[in-house]
């Protein structure tokens, strides 16, 4: 047990393998299942079925639109807020951390049920899918806030913005020229996580009766097992691709610390 040095590497690799298996086994199962076109026969039949479906396309586009809207609203609301909390209200930070975690600890079903109750009288609002974007901004708060918070914590925000200020910059200029370029990867992280949440959120959309992508997956999942597995893999590949893209963009910028790239 004493030779930390030598055993360290072995341990790490052990855990890496365990972790990878833990993740890859279900994926492999899904993949195998989705390729089964009959007993002992495999093919891309179920994938074909999905891509041909107009419901697939419309629900996917709806979810994508909602995701982009959510990202936009989140960033516009949060970037100045987090900046200000860091610079001027460090004492309020624990309070903010507490507030933003609230949406997370309210089970989505509870939130959905509550919202349904709340908005039932205002039928016209309930009928606009954009309503979901506002709900998702709240839902994504724990992730988007934290990503930005971590990004701004990783740079010495106080000193940097005081340096900019002493050189004559207003806070908006500081934010634009100094802060944002140095938290790019955490902006990306926040955006991507928000996107992932919106692309995966089922309960609220389903209860509010919108045909988003997750609702479509769920519908397929309940009715058609094989296409469902294919669909799950497709959605996995999509998110995985976006994730990798973000990872590469984050690392490509050698100037900021790698740590920032993955924090949120």
């Amino acid at each position, binding site marked *: 047990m004493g030779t930390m040095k030598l055993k360290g590497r072995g341990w790490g690799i052990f855990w890496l393998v365990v972790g990878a298996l833990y993740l890859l086994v279900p994926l492999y199962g899904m993949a195998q299942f989705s390729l089964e076109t009959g007993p002992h026969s495999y093919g891309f039949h179920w994938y074909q079925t999905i891509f041909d479906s107009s419901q697939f396309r419309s629900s996917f586009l709806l979810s994508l639109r909602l995701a982009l809207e959510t990202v936009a609203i989140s960033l516009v609301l949060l970037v100045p807020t987090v900046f200000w909390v860091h610079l001027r209200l*460090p004492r309020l930070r624990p309070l903010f951390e507490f507030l933003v975690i609230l949406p997370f600890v309210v089970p989505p079903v509870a939130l959905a049920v509550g919202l349904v109750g709340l908005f039932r009288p205002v039928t016209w609002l309930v009928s606009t899918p954009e309503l979901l974007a506002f709900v998702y901004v709240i839902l994504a708060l724990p992730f988007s806030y934290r990503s930005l918070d971590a990004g701004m914590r990783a740079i010495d925000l106080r000193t940097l913005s*005081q340096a900019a200020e002493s050189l004559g910059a207003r806070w908006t200029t500081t934010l634009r020229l*100094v802060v944002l370029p140095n938290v790019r990867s955490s902006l990306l992280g926040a955006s991507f996580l928000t996107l992932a949440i919106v692309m995966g959120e089922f309960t609220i959309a389903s209860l509010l009766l919108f045909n988003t992508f997750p609702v479509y997956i769920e519908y397929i999942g309940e009715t058609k097992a094989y296409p469902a597995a294919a669909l799950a893999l497709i959605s996995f590949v999509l998110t995985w691709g976006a994730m990798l893209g973000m990872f590469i963009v984050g690392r490509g910028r050698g100037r900021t610390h790698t740590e920032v790239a993955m924090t949120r």
Partner: protein
Amino acid sequence: MSKLELVEISKRFGAVEALRGLSLEVASGEFLSLLGPSGCGKTTALRIIAGFEHPDVGKLLVDGRDLTAIPANRRSMGMVFQSYSLFPNMTARENVEFGLRIRRRARAERTARALELLDLVGLAGTANRYPHQLSGGQQQRVALARALAIEPEVLLLDEPLSALDAKVRVQLREEIRRIQTSLGITTIYVTHDQEEALSISDRVAVLSLGCIEQIGAPSDIYREPRTRFVAEFVGTMNRLDGKVNPDGSIECGGLCVAHGVALGDHAPGEQVIVLVRPESIVLEELPEPQAASGDLFEGRIVAHTFLGAVTRVTVSVAFGAVTADLPSSRALGLSPGTRVSVRIDPSGVRLLSIGTSGPGSDGSGPTGGGSGGSGPTGEAESPGEEGSATAGGLPTRSAASL
């Protein structure tokens, strides 16, 4: 008229009184250092001048204009920070250009100016490097160039060298002084290192507990400390308990230790604190024991500390121990155990009344730095100052870097 004036400035952070009625005038082109231990308020004073903190009471005047309510970004103060503060997304040149870009200068003009300033700080070749490609010393040079680029009214330096290696520190401080002199820019420099303050400044203000204990030329501060705190914080000092004899000589523990000391307003018979710099103590080897005569008395070498050009020697004497600095070549002959005669150069003796603790200290007395070679207590620090300083449970930067 003075360039910059602080008038009776006070500032609290929660329970901590960082500044207590600080007043200060800085002449145009002057290099003034604020020197003191951590927690003395020196950084708070600088941040108030920069506009990052606002005084609870008091005024800040620059060229007679009241800037107290003007925000930092409209004050035109060039600031160099303790921690590396270059914008990581910009090259050295872009960093230096930043202030001019804010001022909407033409691109060609600001680039020319940035290159000129980088040349001034000795970094002509590194204009296109990013901060993470520069050493600590180089980063602070760029920060200096960046602060100078806006042609600030006053240049503010907040312990700019404290993160650097000892050797680099000395080089860079000489250079800061050279640049400041050549530009003639009014400069305020915050440091906890007395040698740094003495070597670089036109005047030094020694701060303790939010007040100025003494302000003056480095040589005055060193030679004529007005309070015990200054005497012991600036340089090494022997502190002896003594008495003024009727004939004007000084007596310590029954021995006459100095004749012809400038007594000032200390009356014969008065109990005084006798302050003697180590370099004012003269030692001669003494082969035979001998009674004290005149102002000579006997001692025995106890320990040596080699400091380079000089060697610091601890000498045990009848009334305790004194520390003397000798040229290292001379100290070689005086190995520990040697019996010596001790003479104190009267021109190097300074007397203070007992209880003199400076104009700024309250009844609780000064937080004195220990004298050279004294016991382990008496560090001029208060707990929590550099550790995880928390105020009200929350880590607050400003309170931590008073």
